[in-house]
């Protein structure tokens, strides 16, 4: 299954395979695109995919607003007894996650395949 959404500076698509949704973002995740991203995340989780891999390989910038959008997604998946893996972050984005101390709350992995494998391993 695939779906897509366009905010001003952010393109969102997702595919679902084996009950794991891979959400790919392309562009900036900041205060301009936060609401669009949160709406899209909500749509993904409420449509039945509570195991989410967030592919950030095409995201060159995340601000605190973007970080809060990711936290919203985390709350949604946790609320649905799922899990979140954030994958393929570029160095500045990865650094922001490190500064924020969020690695204990969700998986931060180098590639999407590793993220998918980690969720498969956890939920079988």
């Amino acid at each position, binding site marked *: 299954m695939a779906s897509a959404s366009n905010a001003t500076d952010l393109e969102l698509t997702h595919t679902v395979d084996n009950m794991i949704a891979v959400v790919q973002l392309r562009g900036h995740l*900041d*205060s*301009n695109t936060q609401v669009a991203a949160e709406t899209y995340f909500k749509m993904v989780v409420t449509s039945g995919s509570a195991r989410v891999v967030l592919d950030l390989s095409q995201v060159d*910038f*995340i*601000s*605190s*607003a973007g*970080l*809060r959008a990711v*936290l919203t997604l*985390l*709350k949604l998946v*946790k*609320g649905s007894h799922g899990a979140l893996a954030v994958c393929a972050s570029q160095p*500045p984005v990865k*650094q*922001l996650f*490190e*500064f*924020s*101390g*969020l690695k*204990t*709350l969700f998986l931060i992995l180098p590639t999407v395949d590793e993220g998918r494998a980690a969720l498969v391993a956890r939920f079988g």
Partner: protein
Amino acid sequence: MSGESAFDSASAFLAGLVFFFIGLDGIRSSLKGLASREMRRRAQRATASPLRAALLGIGLGAITQSATAVAFVLGGLVSTRFLSLQRALTVVAFANPGTALLAFLAAINLNVATLWVIGLAGLAMRQRRLAHHNAVFGALLGIGFLLFGLVELKLAAAPLGKAAWFEAITAALNVSLLLAFVVGTALRLVIQSSSAIAVILIALCGKGLIEPTQAIMVIHGTGIGIGLSVLMLGQGLRGDARRISYWQAIINVLSGSFMGGWLLLAWVGVLPSIIELLSRTSLKIETVLATGFFVQMSMGAVFNALLSPAAPRILSRLVPDHAEEELAKPAFISENASNTPEIAVELVRREQVRILRAAPALLDRARLDRTQSTSRSNAALHTSLVALHTEIASFLAECTEHAHAHTESTLFVHAIGREQVVGELIDAIDALGTEVSAMSDGTSASTLCGGLVEATDAMLHVLADALEGTDEMDREILAAMTSDRSEQLESVRRSAASTRFGTPREQAATLYAISLFERVMYLARRLAPEAAV
């Protein structure tokens, strides 16, 4: 007036203006340090009734010889919430007739009194034993500078009376009443004292240099001049302080226009003029003019009484509240709330959430996310946050005084400790924003520290969510975001200290920013709901 004396007058005028503004700033900043609830109650008692407020206004007007100065001093008192706006308007309105009393009396040597105020307040501020009263002496010093500035302005204008062109104007005044009115307006803009103008005119009239009707018309014109002068000097004011200056302008323009209109009607024979009415008594012409001046100034108080019910509506339309001013005012805590400890602490928590919701904007100037940047004044926001924090701290101190049981005292002591952390957090956030915003764009330092700023911003939002709501997930996220990461940050420090990172100045700034980030994280951890009783 010779070229040399004109230059001297211009120099004195400029210096007077600078002293005036330094005094104004000094009063405002010192009063902020004094803004305890106890001091506020004393100021409120001094103006408890309209009569007391009126008497205080007359007294202040008579002493300072300038209702404009009174308006600016009261602006500081109202903005620090010593006085209600309504009471301050009454004091200012009655300061106007207060200034007119000096037209009857021989001029008090305000210059000498001003120098004593400056000297004694300045010396007192240097005494370590009196250090805890520095805010009071600072305010007195500010008043001294403000009055000294006005004295200098008047001295600069004094030679005008002897100038040939001034005599030419007075001759022209005897021809046209309207010209006399306009000249009064202009003179008041130059000579920052209506009573000084009145005294000069009374002297000129006494010597037969100007007709009494023309002299009183010049005095009436000063009403417009006061209004324009207050508006010009109050350009930098905001909020209630600006509202008071507007009110002073409105009532003086109305009283000047009323008296001027009356004289014009008398001129065409519709009704007797005030000069004619007063001349029917056995008063000397000098006293007649002084009384006419007093009546005009008293009209300000009359217009104040007539318009005061509508004053808040008029003034809030003319000077709407800025977001920062709204923020500085407590939205939940009140005098009555201090009686029930649980309610008091809950209301304080809500005020703290307001601070935490607003504080991230202190980082806007340093954000990587430029779309978040606002045009709001960082200094104004910081001042408002500190003002609200001070209010909360004073409220809690007052609650502690009222607490009877040990458990109540413990509750309040703990709340005071948390509020202290809030105050430290405001300063740490502001310092981080200042440090990072000073970095050049596009450098390794600005990229790294921009990340710290974004992470701090997210942390503060989560902290506010965790304090405001009951979502366990918010608390879990906050715990993760504020967890001890000294090892990780030590590694970032080592990276920033390497020679490839940037210039020594950029390295030093980055290391300081990392320390500030750690401090914000530590303070946020202390404010987490789990840390509360």
